[in-house]
């Protein structure tokens, strides 16, 4: 997937990789790449302002803490972030189901029966 298309989904993907626990910026990037098996082309620099924005929205919080003997800014989900992620997941499932139904009507009819 092209970098521009991926960029529009960062607001849901970044909280998703932070769901298990706090991560620093580079670990967030590698988590996205690992989960997508390298299929997503991601300009790694786009992640940092996105993390800042999500923190400003109150969906993440961050603090500096030592990771591998180096102080890093680690990000974690807030309660509002967890609620927002649940909403984003359900919206995404509804969206992909609707698109699936349009692209492949026979498969979606089979699933319905």
């Amino acid at each position, binding site marked *: 997937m092209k970098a521009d298309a991926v960029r529009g989904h960062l607001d849901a993907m970044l909280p998703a990789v932070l769901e298990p626990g706090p991560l620093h*910026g*580079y670990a967030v990037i590698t988590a996205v790449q690992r989960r997508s098996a390298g299929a997503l082309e991601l300009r*790694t620099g*786009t*992640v*940092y302002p996105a993390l800042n*924005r999500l923190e*400003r929205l109150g*969906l993440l919080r961050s603090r500096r803490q030592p990771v591998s003997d180096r102080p890093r800014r680690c990000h974690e989900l807030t309660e509002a972030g967890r609620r927002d992620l649940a909403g984003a997941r359900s919206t995404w499932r509804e969206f992909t189901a609707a698109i699936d139904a349009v692209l492949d009507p026979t498969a979606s009819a089979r699933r319905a029966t």
Partner: protein
Amino acid sequence: MSTAPRADPVEDYLATLTTSLHGPARAKAAMMREVRDGLVDAVEAQTRFGVPRAQAAHRAVLDFGTADELAPSFQRELTIAQTRRTARVAAVTVPVLVVCRFMVHVVARDPDWRLGALAVHLAAVATASGLLAVTALVATGPLTRLLPTPHRLPSAVAWTASAAAVGMALAAVALGVTSALSTDWPLTAFAGVLAIAAHGVVAASARECRRCVRAGAGCR
């Protein structure tokens, strides 16, 4: 014959990005520190697989995206941080202006229209500063998750704060002249000093906010 040392692509990149960004020093430093940490991590991750350091640094910078490509997103965050800072500064100066207005009101027991006009001017500046502060802080704070931050808000805050700073400077001059003519001069002189101090703080923050807005426009 001496050869010039080869530049580090990571340091070059950080220098380019840092130069193109404007905003609150602490927020910008924290942002750049995190970017540096990320680039250093990316270089280390590749050198662990045997990639030479220079090549790993070059690749890390390439994967990161060009400074021109990324500066608008970083600048947007810094502009909002500076907008909030300017709004907070304006909020803090409102009580100062109210004190100034109160002092003028105390001095203006005699029916001097000039002092009355000064009191009205101070009240108007205090009201504008207060409205600006509340609007900006709410729009970039609790409302952000519900409504997108208006694109022109930082510019509106920068210019309203600039106007408030000019109003404070005029008030300071008027209070200075009044204190020279008034019998209660210590009160008006004190109010004048408060107005000068408020002007200094608001003008500096508004100037930085205008710089952020210009940098954001230049990034687009």
